[in-house]
């Protein structure tokens, strides 16, 4: 059967389901997750991501097959679980998104502006190429142990920076990441909040992104999660693959290290 058609059906079903979700309770989402069992609509996005990886693109019309995600050019299996990490060719720590930007500009000849034009979907979109790529790359690490680099001095400095960013209060509401995520057993309205300063909380959160968001019908990446948390903190827009985005993800990945990746997850 046509993949796009199946995906369309899924989207419609999910749309109908969400219309009935007048009360945004986790219980209903749990029922939905139960109904899906081991199935996750993200599978279609993963297929797309794989196709995009191998498809020639950009002014140079080459694929991403020679992109080095840290385990050597073209090695995708297991790469996500070891990110963010230090890359000698750029002399800095990168997450999957910063690395994809590097490969798209270096290998495919895209400009940074083109890569940054719309990395993440807006509400109602069907997904971006970057989201699909990240979904596929993360899926290639599913079940593997989270082991971000911490051997290089810049990797450790990035973790320290991430911790400081986590506690940085600013803006009209004086919010930081810690406002919502440094205590255990808390929630906003009915939304449970993981304690990201602890291993169990960080592991639960980090291992489940990227995730298919049921309420939005798209796969969201960890980078998007960082950007959206900043929006909710009343901060300006966090740039995809920026130093702050990478450092915050490094803080979470290192705190969650040792747990197994379970992405793409399925979320509210």
């Amino acid at each position, binding site marked *: 059967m046509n993949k796009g058609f199946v995906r369309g059906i899924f989207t419609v079903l999910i749309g109908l389901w969400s219309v009935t979700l007048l009360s945004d309770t986790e219980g209903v989402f749990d029922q939905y997750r139960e109904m899906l069992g081991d199935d996750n609509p993200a599978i279609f996005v993963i297929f797309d991501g794989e196709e995009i990886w191998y498809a020639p693109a950009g002014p140079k019309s080459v694929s991403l097959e020679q992109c080095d995600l840290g385990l050597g050019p073209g090695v995708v299996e297991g790469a996500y679980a070891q990110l963010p990490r230090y890359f000698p060719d750029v002399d800095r720590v990168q997450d999957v998104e910063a690395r994809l930007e590097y490969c798209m500009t270096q290998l495919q000849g895209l400009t940074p502006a083109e890569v940054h034009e719309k990395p993440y979907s807006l509400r109602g979109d069907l997904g971006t190429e970057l989201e699909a790529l990240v979904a596929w790359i993360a899926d290639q690490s599913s079940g593997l142990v989270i082991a971000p680099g911490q051997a290089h001095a810049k990797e450790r400095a990035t973790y320290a920076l991430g911790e400081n*960013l986590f506690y*940085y209060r600013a803006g*009209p509401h*004086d919010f930081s990441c810690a406002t919502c995520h440094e205590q255990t057993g808390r929630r906003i309205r009915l939304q449970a909040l993981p304690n990201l300063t602890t291993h169990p909380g960080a592991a639960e959160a980090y291992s489940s992104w990227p995730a298919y968001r049921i309420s939005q019908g798209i796969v969201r990446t960890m980078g998007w999660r960082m950007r959206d948390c900043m929006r909710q903190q009343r901060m*300006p*827009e966090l740039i995809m693959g920026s130093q*702050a985005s990478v450092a915050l993800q490094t803080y979470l990945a290192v705190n969650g290290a040792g747990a197994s990746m379970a992405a793409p997850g399925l979320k509210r």
Partner: protein
Amino acid sequence: MMMKTIMQFLAFIIFSSAVCADEVYDVLLDSMTDKNFVTVERLKQDELQAFCSQPRSVSADEARAAELRAAALSDVPIPSDQNYLGDWQRGEKVASNGRGLQYSDDPEQENGGNCYACHQLDPAEVAYGNLGPSLSGYGARGQSIAMLQYTWTKLWNTHAYNICSHMPRFGAAGILTEQQLRDVMAFLFDPQSPVNRTQP
């Protein structure tokens, strides 16, 4: 020679020990862009924000904390007419409204207080958060001028009593207007407000 070694040692201590606040600010400035009406101006910290950005593991400077607490307290305007209580029904709307000051929000709309995100208020509302304490039955804590002043101050600038509290400075930061604050006060204190009805 000796001097040089000492200087190098000092430099090592200073630059290797911690990420300094200025560096964090510079990184944020490089990592963010203006969006709609929200600009990178917001990334600058005031004294209180800077003081309250230490990881919990870092022991607080008690003297500095006392200074900032006193400064917060002295800045709270007490309504000249001693009129603290507005309309509890409007206050209930402010408490339920989570919009305001995000770049995705409409700046023409009035800001909400989003009290339910963190506090239980009307005991019949099940969708309440628990980052802050329950305020159900708040009116029973007393209706004296002292109690009204205390609550007004807490809403205006929580740090006057609880330095580095997670709560926003609703008055001092201009998130809510004085009238909205009076309405929220009424929502907390009015005997007719659902906050003060009998627990189900």
